[in-house]
């Protein structure tokens, strides 16, 4: 399990190759990459600033990964979240999961993203031509995380 909080960009293929190398004949690798959107509520985004709570961030991500491991048979897990100033179309977040079971890799990867979105202490500020504002938490993200409590 690796968790990285960093300002610099990441290289998907390096992360993927690390998962492949560190896994025991995995069979399935699922990756999620989140990118900065260029619009928000019909305004053009010129930049985004990502703040986080050092220490708690790593703790909460580790707890989310532990939860995923308790639910599914996964091999390696890797999470990267960038902080600081980002431009539209830049990579923000990466979650990669390897497993010998395809369904486990998909579920664990999506589960980690859903809880990262609702539990990990990151906050986004969007900069537009009209000004800057803190992004509001979305009901759809809360719903996405809640739905895991109904499932095995």
């Amino acid at each position: 399990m690796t968790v990285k909080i960093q300002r610099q960009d990441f290289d998907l293929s390096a992360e993927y190759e690390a998962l492949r190398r560190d896994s025991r004949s995995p069979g399935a690798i699922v990756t999620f990459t989140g990118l900065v959107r260029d619009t928000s509520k019909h305004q053009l985004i010129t930049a985004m600033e990502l703040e986080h709570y050092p220490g708690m961030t790593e703790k909460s991500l580790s707890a989310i990964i532990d939860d995923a491991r308790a639910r599914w048979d996964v091999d390696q897990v890797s999470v990267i979240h960038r902080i600081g100033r980002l431009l539209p179309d830049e990579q923000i977040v990466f979650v990669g999961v390897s497993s010998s079971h395809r369904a486990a890799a998909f579920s664990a990867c999506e589960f980690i993203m859903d809880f990262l979105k609702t539990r990990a202490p990151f906050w986004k500020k969007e900069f537009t031509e009209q000004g800057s504002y803190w992004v509001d938490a979305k009901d759809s993200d809360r719903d996405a995380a809640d739905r895991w409590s109904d499932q095995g």
Partner: protein
Amino acid sequence: MLVEIWYFARIKEAVDCEHEKLELPDGNPTVRDLVDILSQRGENWRKALSDENLLVAVNQTVASMQTTIAEGDEIAFFPPVTGG
């Protein structure tokens, strides 16, 4: 007793403070007691800390208004998270 407090995102901007150390009266104060003390500082503090969506963490774990604070604890106030 001395505690450390962090403020994040829009809470930080509203109270114009990122980090402070604060001497609290002994006697098992709760997060609610701390919020009441901080809210005395002005309307911006009172308003920011009475937001119904306000989250609080004690020692980097999500806590509630009823959580008891101990000497040396790290308390953080922040809005709902929006990373990813």
